[in-house]
């Protein structure tokens, strides 16, 4: 059981959108597909959904090429496109009914699923409203609702949090976490790396059509030797000297304001082995400690280290 992308390439005229993209997903994987706008994320997703048919390479699900299993593929995938429109004369529930019917649902089962989707996506109050009158956030929730109707085991979410207000983003992230039930494949793209941190079990970094790295978030942080950071705050505006930490695996000490400091540990240093020594140093210098926190390096740091765009 797996989804394999094998040497996937796609060109639009002279523009090469994807170059030999290769990676494999296991059931339960939540793939964070990261890359700047135009990197090829949507192209990869549209190939998997069958919306793009002319490409090089192959995509296989459970060992079968998707080109030989179109109807089954369409029953198994749910797609939330980045910017798909709706026929605006429809009402919300009418749109869901049509999409549900086309996915093979009917009768009471269909009505039950529509009700559940409206409830889950907080669209119940606008069920009879025409789509033309919906806000951008509501339309995005409707895109989610249509993708979930037939309970697909492969969910493809193209920039699903784009254009949502903070409350809706929180709600959608929670929904994605709920949907990641350990059996379903979820592939979601974003150009905002922070969105991936607490959702993805695997990360694929796409840059100019090429997969730069594929792995777990922890693995990527470790691979790039991005050391952890210890944040220290004083209650008395005590000053902290970098030379206090001589002999400890501390790369540098950075002051942030009058009473906040960041200790950047040498890459690969486990923070739990270093923390007691840091606390000991602070105590020896009678530093009025008010808080001590471990900050993980972000995926953004990984991305910038990889592409050199932060330099």
């Amino acid at each position, binding site marked *: 059981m797996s989804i394999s992308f094998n040497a996937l390439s796609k060109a639009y005229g002279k523009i090469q959108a994807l170059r030999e993209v290769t990676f494999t997903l296991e059931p339960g994987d939540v793939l964070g597909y990261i890359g700047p706008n135009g990197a090829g994320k949507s192209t990869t997703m549209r190939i998997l959904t069958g919306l793009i048919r002319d490409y090089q390479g192959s995509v296989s699900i459970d060992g079968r090429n998707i080109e030989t299993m179109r109807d089954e593929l369409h029953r198994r995938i749910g797609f939330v496109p980045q910017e798909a429109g709706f026929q605006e004369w429809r009402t919300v529930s009418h749109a869901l009914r049509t999409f549900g019917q*086309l996915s*093979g649902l009917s009768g009471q089962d269909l009505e039950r699923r529509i009700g559940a989707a409206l409830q889950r996506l907080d669209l119940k109050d606008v069920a009879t409203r025409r789509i033309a009158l919906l806000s951008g956030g509501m339309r995005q929730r409707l895109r989610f609702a249509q993708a979930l109707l037939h309970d697909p085991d492969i969910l493809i979410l193209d920039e699903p949090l784009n254009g949502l207000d903070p409350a809706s983003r929180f709600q959608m992230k929670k929904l994605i976490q709920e949907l990641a039930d350990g059996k379903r494949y979820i592939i979601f793209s974003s150009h905002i790396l922070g969105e991936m941190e607490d959702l993805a079990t695997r990360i694929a970094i796409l840059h100019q059509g090429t997969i730069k790295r594929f792995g777990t978030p922890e693995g990527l942080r470790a691979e790039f030797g991005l050391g952890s950071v210890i944040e220290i705050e004083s209650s008395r505006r005590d000053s902290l000297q970098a030379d206090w930490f001589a002999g400890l695996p501390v790369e540098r000490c950075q002051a942030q304001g009058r009473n906040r400091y960041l200790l950047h540990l040498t890459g690969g240093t486990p923070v739990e082995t270093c923390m007691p020594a840091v606390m000991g140093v602070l105590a020896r210098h009678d530093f009025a400690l008010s808080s001590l926190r471990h900050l993980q390096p972000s995926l953004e740091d990984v991305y910038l280290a990889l592409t050199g765009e932060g330099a």
Partner: protein
Amino acid sequence: MNTMWRNLAILYLDELRGFGRSRVMLVLWIGLPLVTALFRLLQPNLEGMPLTTFTALMTGSIGGTLSAVLMATTITGERLSKVYDLFLVRPIRRGWLLVAKYLAALTGLFVAAFLAVAVGLAVDAFNGLPALSLIEAALVPLLLSLSAMAVATAVGLLFGVLFNSVAAAAILSVYLGNQLSAIVLLPMVFLTGAWPLVIALGTGLLVPVGLLLASAAIFQRKTL
């Protein structure tokens, strides 16, 4: 019923509902019969031609033009706003979207044409003309009008698939949709006897089928 025919039926009924709600169809359903009645008031003498016959001829021109523009603008607009993505990730062939839309538009047009002819028939009958002979006289013009509308609608559909500009698709549909639909009238002009009508109706059937197939083939290759 297998998935293919079931989904085609769903799409057709769905499009029918959509066209039913569109202003163009409402204009046609109400407008064509209304124009018929108004014409009678403004021009009581149609040089001996019954209003029913005149209406049957007129619907092909007005209805065909409007339908061509409606198809072209709808399809181009929906393609550009990526409406079809959510359909095509389901067990649907791309061509079905076009077939369903075409058949639904044609159904709406035919209803409008019959309503208009019915109004003409009622007005003529009210003026004492025999209904049976009116129907006989209007039958051939009506069939030709329906064929012309079928061609014009298919031309609009092809332009909707071909062009990435709503304005370009609309303008070309106005000009060429109506012009090309006149192809069904050519056998009636240049041939005599019973065959011209058969050829004309055959043209009205085969040309749209050819245009639909061409549109579907182009749509299949188009990057959405």
